[in-house]
């Protein structure tokens, strides 16, 4: 049995490696994606264009605006003197926000009345808008404090962020990408492997060989695991070297998680492959699984923000648990005991999906 299985695995790996185009799509795009997305997938604010409209033009208004001009997160500064110019800059998205200081700003301050500053934000990018609001609020607060110091309020809220002291998005994104890219590869190899052979008719030939259905299944699963694991480790190494994301946990926890995760994904891929008659159907099914599993994984938007029903659905998503393990081992240094739930869920998903694949396989193919 092992000899037959070994031959089949070798054949599968050769099949993937020998075709120039297949070899390229298996290795090239995931690496390029990692390089691009680790830079692009960020919620950090940086060099955002601003428009300032100072109607007051006094020493005090300039002092307040100096706080904005000096901030690193704001980039090109525009100055306008008319409402129409300001509207145009916001409409065309040339600026992320506008600050307007009305006439009488300094007079109000000197008279002890609250001085008003208008902040106009572009709601077409709400997340950026909220980030800017928080930032400007802090500048306004410290300006207030300076003005009020004689009257004695001091705010001393000391903030410390655990696990990621500088709140770098990249530390959060890169571990997630390891999970996503590993899933893409494992799913592609398993979901399309069988469907392709069936469409081209070569699968029938495999069926007349002495290989048993279980061996066929293993022969399709193991190569995908080898390729996926290799790819996952490659991305992992690039992540901790090139992007300097710290890996504080233990490697064996991560590897055990990856292996369980890929078994589950391979089970899903094989099931999809077995219910499809053509490659096109298999590709549609793979997308139908892939797209929601990324969105429901907590990769970009937190699971805690989702409504209860959707949150319940994320429980059957292997990627959700894998990303939890990845982030917990990278940044939190958690071990097996702390991650019992994700590991149990991944094992359960793998068990169910591989059983389903075997059953469907027996019934529809063999």
């Amino acid at each position, binding site marked *: 049995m092992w000899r037959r299985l070994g031959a089949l695995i070798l054949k599968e790996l050769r099949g993937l490696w020998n075709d120039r185009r297949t070899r390229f799509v298996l290795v090239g795009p995931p690496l390029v994606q990692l390089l691009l997305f680790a830079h692009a997938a960020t919620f950090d604010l940086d060099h955002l264009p601003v428009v300032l409209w100072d109607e007051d033009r006094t020493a005090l208004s300039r002092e307040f605006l100096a706080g904005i001009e000096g901030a690193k997160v704001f980039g090109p500064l525009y100055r306008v003197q008319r409402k129409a110019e300001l509207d145009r800059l916001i409409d065309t*998205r040339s600026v992320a926000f506008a600050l307007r200081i009305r006439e009488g700003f300094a007079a109000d301050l000197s008279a002890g009345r609250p001085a008003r500053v208008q902040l106009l934000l572009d709601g077409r990018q709400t997340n950026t808008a909220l980030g800017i609001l928080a930032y400007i609020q802090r500048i306004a607060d410290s300006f207030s404090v300076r003005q009020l110091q004689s009257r004695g309020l001091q705010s001393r809220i000391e903030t410390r*962020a655990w696990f990621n002291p500088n709140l770098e998005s990249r530390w959060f994104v890169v571990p997630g990408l390891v999970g996503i890219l590993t899933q893409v590869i494992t799913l592609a190899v398993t979901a399309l492997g069988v469907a*392709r052979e069936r469409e081209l008719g070569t699968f029938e030939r495999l069926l007349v060989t002495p290989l048993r259905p279980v061996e066929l299944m293993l022969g399709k699963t193991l190569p995908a695991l080898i390729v996926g694991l290799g790819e996952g480790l490659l991305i992992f190494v690039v992540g901790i070297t090139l992007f300097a994301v710290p890996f504080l946990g233990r490697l064996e926890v991560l590897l055990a998680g990856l292996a369980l995760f890929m078994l589950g994904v391979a089970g899903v891929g094989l099931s999809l492959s077995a219910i499809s008659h053509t490659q096109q159907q298999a590709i549609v099914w793979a997308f139908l699984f892939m797209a929601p599993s990324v969105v429901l994984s907590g990769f970009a938007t937190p699971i805690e923000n989702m409504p209860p029903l959707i949150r319940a659905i994320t429980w059957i998503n292997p990627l959700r648990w894998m990303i939890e393990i990845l982030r917990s081992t990278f940044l939190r240094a958690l071990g097996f005991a702390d991650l019992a739930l994700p590991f149990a869920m991944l094992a359960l998903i793998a068990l169910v999906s591989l059983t389903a694949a075997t059953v469907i396989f027996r019934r529809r193919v063999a």
Partner: protein
Amino acid sequence: MRSGGLSLRRCAALIRKEALEILRDPSSIAIAVVLPILLLVLFGYAVSLDPQRIRTAVVAPVLDRPTMSLIEHLRGSPYFAIEVHRSRQPAEERLRARGVEAVLVFPDDFAARLARGELALQLLLDGVNANTARIVQAYLRGTLGIWAAGELRLRLEAPALLLEPRLWFNTDVESRRFLVPGLVAVIMTLIGSLLTALVVAREWEHGSFESLFATPIRITEILAGKLLPYFLLGMIGMALVAATAVFLFGVPLRGSLAALAGMSALYLVVTLEFGLLVSGAARNQFVAGQITLFAAFLPAFILSGFVFDIRSMPGWMQTLTYIVPARYFVSSLQTLFLAGDLGAVLFPDAAALAAFAFGLALLIRTRTRKSLE
């Protein structure tokens, strides 16, 4: 190669054949009609950047009046779910085990320092999700500020400077409003390119593309025959998705339907052409599917400005986004849905998309030949 002399009869025959093929294998219809609505409903509900109830542990060693007052104030806020600990250690344990997202530590002499006009607190955050941590921090600081202003009104007049924020186009500050138009663009990118990416690759794989060479049909006619049926299918999908965005998610459509239809048609042509190009180059469905995922779907997700703001990316990355067609469609959809028919945004976007459509057509025309390698 000679061009021109399009024969309507040959074209019509090919379109009819392609339409029959679509009807025979309903997976194309599933891609165009079922997939987009399913994805939009799922994503529209799932994707939210607004925290629901931030689980916060409060460490209060002394439960005196000001401390109780602040805890009650936090409990009254819809943004926090508060649990109170008397000492630091159990609260930190909760933070470590992801039981809470933030810990607010009161010093022993909180009341005494407050009496001197000093609001002294320590805030510990779970920094793993940097974006959430920042939002949590902003919400907590805001709530604390409001409470402090109320407490200290006895001693202070109003703050010296009042910020009057106004959020244009999205006054309710709902992240879903800005995410759904972007999602429509991402979904249509996937649908458009997937529809055509597989058709030509399948024919190459089966060898039926080569049989076409033996017929008098011209390349331009083959391409038109492949594009038109899928264009109609894609427009149906787009209409359904736009209707779902407006009626299910309550996203306003402030622009005109005509502008929406025009921009969508333009973008759909670009994605369909992209699929055809991939299909012709890959010549096998596995490779075509993978390239579509990596070159169309993921860039549309990450490099289009749909969630991640392009203006905050490094300079070279911003330059790179100019060659992602989804960028122009996301920008025009966000404007069309939330702002209205703003020519200053729509015309440049439309021009860029038209340039892509034209460039891709040329590229396909030169790359697809009626010959074997």
